[in-house]
């Protein structure tokens, strides 16, 4: 018995009135490390114990306000800075529409922060190795009795004095509470191998389950990600048609829009004579021509048609488009080159539609004129 370390002296009371009077006396006597234990909160006990009001309200205020401003700031950054999108003609930062989300986040952050700080910082929970746990005293105060505890490490604590004091205040039972061996020798179990193995197992299982569900489970039926669709893809067979092909030939004797056959194959000079630019020159057509020229022509011919190839010798540099010869070509002659290719230049008929070729030609004309400008052009 004497080897045990004393935690404190407890007293049990039968009625709320007697415990509240006793608590007031304990506070008056000048004890500091004491506590009252009741199965439910008693009105007026804080006053009797002379406790200062709880500061948790400030925590709620601080976290609520910071949650609100962080939410507003995040929404602003997402919708006005990171990826601005026009939605319903509203401004990029329509803050009235953000009130619901900001309000919810305010409530969420304040509630979570208040409860967590109460449990983990104010109460220092979880704490299941307290000397009071499992005592007769705790069993009583958790059910229907009211108790007061004066801790042995209180500067004024004296075993016999405290006992006598409690008996004078009308306590029904007075008892001493000792630390158990387990409670004294209790080590923080965080570094125990068992716990570490548990953590490792939890990590492996969680990541394994995540991997399997994201990479395997989500790709089995019925999660087909629309990969099977009731439509015909190119080259697919189809029982609908007699020949079993999904792809169809054009109807005999018809020409599809934009696929008029080229009549001057192998006769570029004839094409130069017969063909004329069918697209009127406009700002729009020149712009469209520039875009296609930059995509298809500029890698070899350079952005200005001067033969400044970006292929760095991997492909022969073409001659400049500003030579006397090409400036004197008709539009139709250039069209023949784009359509059929010339020397090492391949045909661009599949990349550029007829209209697009004419637009590119108009743009080449504009480039030629710009690089060989006359005095009169400056006026």
């Amino acid at each position: 018995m004497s080897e045990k370390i004393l935690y404190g002296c407890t007293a049990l009371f039968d009625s709320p009135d007697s415990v509240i009077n006793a608590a007031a006396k304990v506070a008056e006597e000048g004890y500091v490390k004491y506590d009252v234990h009741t199965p439910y909160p008693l009105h007026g006990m804080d006053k009797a114990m002379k406790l200062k009001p709880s500061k948790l309200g400030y925590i709620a205020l601080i976290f609520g306000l910071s949650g609100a401003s962080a939410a507003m700031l995040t929404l602003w950054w997402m919708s006005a800075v990171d990826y601005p999108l026009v939605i319903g003609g509203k401004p990029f930062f329509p803050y009235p529409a953000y009130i619901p989300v900001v309000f919810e986040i305010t409530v969420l952050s304040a509630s979570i922060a208040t409860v967590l700080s109460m449990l983990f910082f104010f109460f220092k929970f979880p704490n299941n190795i307290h000397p009071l746990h499992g005592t007769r005293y705790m069993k009583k105060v958790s059910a229907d009795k009211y108790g007061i505890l004066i801790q042995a490490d209180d500067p004024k604590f004296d075993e016999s004095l405290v006992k006598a004091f409690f008996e004078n205040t009308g306590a029904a039972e007075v008892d001493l509470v000792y630390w158990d061996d387990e409670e004294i020798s209790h080590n923080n179990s965080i570094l125990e191998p068992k716990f570490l193995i548990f953590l490792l197992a939890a990590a492996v299982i969680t990541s394994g389950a995540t991997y399997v569900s994201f990479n395997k489970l989500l790709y089995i039926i019925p999660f087909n990600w629309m990969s099977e669709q009731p439509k015909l893809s190119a080259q697919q067979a189809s029982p609908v048609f007699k020949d079993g092909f999904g792809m169809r030939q054009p109807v005999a004797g018809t020409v599809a829009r934009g696929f008029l056959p080229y009549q001057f194959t192998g006769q570029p000079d004839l094409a130069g004579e017969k063909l004329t630019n069918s697209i009127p020159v406009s700002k729009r057509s020149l712009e469209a021509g520039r875009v296609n020229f930059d995509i298809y022509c500029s890698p070899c011919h350079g952005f200005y048609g001067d033969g400044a190839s970006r292929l760095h010798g991997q492909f022969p540099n073409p001659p400049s488009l500003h030579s006397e010869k090409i400036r004197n070509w008709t539009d139709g002659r250039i069209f023949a080159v784009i359509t059929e290719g010339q020397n090492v230049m391949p045909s661009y008929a599949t990349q550029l539609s007829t209209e697009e070729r004419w637009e590119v030609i108009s743009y080449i004309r504009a480039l030629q004129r710009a690089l060989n400008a006359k005095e009169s052009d400056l006026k």
Partner: protein
Amino acid sequence: MGTADYSQEIQVIEGKPALRELDDLISKPLESKPDKKFYIALSITGSMLGLLVVGLGLTFYYGIGMWGNNIPVGWAFDITNFVFWVGIGHAGTLISAILFLLRQKWRTGIARFAEGMTIFAVMTAGLFPLIHVGRPWLAAYLFPYPNQHSLWVNFTSPLLWDVFAVSTYLTVSLIFWYVGLIPDLATLREKTGNKIKKVIYSVSSLGWRFSNRHWQHYEMVYLILAGFATPLVLSVHTIVSFDFAVSIVPGWHTTIFPPYFVAGAVFSGFAMVQNILIIIRKIFNYEHIITLNTLEKMNKVMLLTGSMVGYAYAMEFFISWYGGVEVERFAFLNRALGPYAWAYWTMISCNVISPQLFWFRKIRRTIPVMFVIAIFVNIGMWFERFVIIVTSLSRDYLPSSWHIFVPTYTDFMILIGSFGFFFTWLLLFTKALPVVSLAEVKAAVDGAQPTQKDH
């Protein structure tokens, strides 16, 4: 009907039971083995839950086409069920938070149970937005997280507000519930003789010691949470009503929706709480904890909110006439006289007429009658959401696209299954945790508080 003595406050807990007796009574279902009745009830709700599983399996495998929804009725049973279940949840928060702030002591006996119901109802409700998107495994897109598309969600959409409102509501309700449970779990920890239970209760009570230095902060936190939960619960159903009110569908585009939806939610929630509590108090012998006076007060709340809902129905009609918009007028006349008139009049008779019987004290205090009325209220409130959603959508602007919604068997499986889901959770709850708050009930017993000397 004796004359009431109004000079004395009615006791919240009848008969001044000893605190130890309350402990034993409330923890009895947790300490005894479940009886035959429990297993019968569980097998019924489990079978209903099975229907849900089959219904959802069909929906996921074959797609949303298994439901009766079709353009223009893109929302039908799914969103009706969602709004219905979210509404059921609201009574719990109202009882635990708003009545706490209003210092209504009669809430103590029913608060824990109603909070539990809130959580299960919100969980049930949460199923529907998930499944109605068709591919629920992609539901994470609803949350703004840095994704491979580097796109953010549309924060101006009421449907997104819903995501935030419902998930916040569930989280805060769970926190509120758990904070309330901590002292009770500690009482059970001290009470139990079973080793495994002791470990579970020790871990979940976190080492609560009933210290007054803790009670002080605890009461403050409870007050703060109640203060937050009150605007939260109002915001949740307001935002749910925005799903409709912010759109331009005739019959939905109404500014009265937020208050009207909140009143409706409390109305249906109280009806559900009342129904279940009548059964609970009978089975577990809680007649003196969940007293007839408490039930009567709940009936009064139903009378009030039912009248508010009735007023809103009338006002909707008035505004559609007064507003002078032809399509609005048509939408409301179509509700009362169109192809879904049967649903409309079911709603009116269940929601507006039946709660008016609660004006009579005798009816307010007769358990079988109030039980039946509350069932009618729940039926009526389900139909309210059905009427709002389906009749408005089935007659949109273009008469050529008008369409009559007919539910399929999958729709009914999921509707019945949602009740199975909710009641299965509820049954397990009654056996796993104290359905009445020990600490709060003890504090409300006559003579449990010190006599006030200073005034």
